[in-house]
């Protein structure tokens, strides 16, 4: 085996460490993100749940539903949003509540505006408030969008920072592992069985 094969082996080893490290970090991340929840395999549980967990409902407090509105429709909305977003910790569960409440409010304000435009007798008294109502509705929509952006930013940010930090760690280890490549030929039989190393095209060709 020539020295280029030793280098290929080192590359394969680097790839294996990289993969292992990323998986390991991702595992740590998901464990940490569970927060106070006593759940494992969070995604699966959230996708299959038929109602919001009691501990989360307690955390959420009173629903923003008026006596004239449909509480079951609100609960269904919360469940669907939670299933789609797949919250990974308490903070994200609080954001789910935000999105649901704001969506509910947007729908309510739109309904009010429609009734205003239709000239419902009772709501004629609100005609002067149409502009204000419109402004409130716009503000609520803006807040909902901000929460959605924040969820996106948070997930991307955590993932990208973990990847960068992981890369830094791996680069450090790669340098350490490259040093003994000169002696690879002698110690080849003692190497760990890395799938990536065994299937590397250059190495297989040799």
């Amino acid at each position, binding site marked *: 085996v020539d020295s280029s094969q030793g280098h290929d082996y080192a590359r394969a080893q680097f790839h294996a460490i990289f993969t292992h490290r990323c998986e390991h970090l991702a595992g740590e991340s998901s464990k940490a993100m569970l927060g*106070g929840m006593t759940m494992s395999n969070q995604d699966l549980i959230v996708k299959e749940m038929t109602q919001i967990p009691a501990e989360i409902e307690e955390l959420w407090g009173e629903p923003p539903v008026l006596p004239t509105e449909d509480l079951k429709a609100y609960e269904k909305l919360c469940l669907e949003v939670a299933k789609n977003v797949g919250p990974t910790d308490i*903070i994200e569960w609080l954001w789910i509540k935000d999105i649901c409440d704001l969506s509910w409010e947007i729908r309510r304000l739109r309904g009010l505006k429609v009734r205003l435009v239709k000239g419902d007798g009772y709501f004629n008294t*609100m005609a002067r408030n149409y502009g204000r109502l419109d402004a409130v509705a716009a503000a609520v929509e803006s807040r909902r969008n*901000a929460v959605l952006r924040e969820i996106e930013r948070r997930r991307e940010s*955590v993932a990208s920072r973990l990847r960068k*930090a992981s890369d830094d*760690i791996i680069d450090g280890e790669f340098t350490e592992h490259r040093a003994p490549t000169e002696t690879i030929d002698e110690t080849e039989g003692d190497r760990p069985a890395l799938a990536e190393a065994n299937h590397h095209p250059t190495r297989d060709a040799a």
Partner: protein
Amino acid sequence: MTTARQIKANRANARSSTGPRTDQGKARASRSALRHGLSVPVLSNPSLSKQVEDLALKILGGNANRVLLELARAIAEAQIDLDRIRDARREVTALTLNGKVGQLALLDRYERRARSRRKSATRAFDAARVECMLDCEGTN
């Protein structure tokens, strides 16, 4: 319309008043200027402080890091503030149906601030948590 005689009598009566005398009356009068209480800091209320602490521990999820605990408290404080605003909003929404949209708009200012505080606190918490995780990773 109030007559000059009535105004004079009202002023004389007011001068002779020394304010509420019973504890119940004093407690009620102390809340005269209180509209919604949203400008009062959460931590000045013992009951809300307890809620902040409980929520912070839930956010922390068993992690014993002191820096993370402080940041989790900041998130919890902003969240409890948002909960207060949400409750006030629910009450005002019922009034909105009677044409008092202006009151709903007034709450926006408080909500915007609380949301901004929660966002900053969450970002700081996430950054610290990732660092903490990587420190642990580095020591393993």
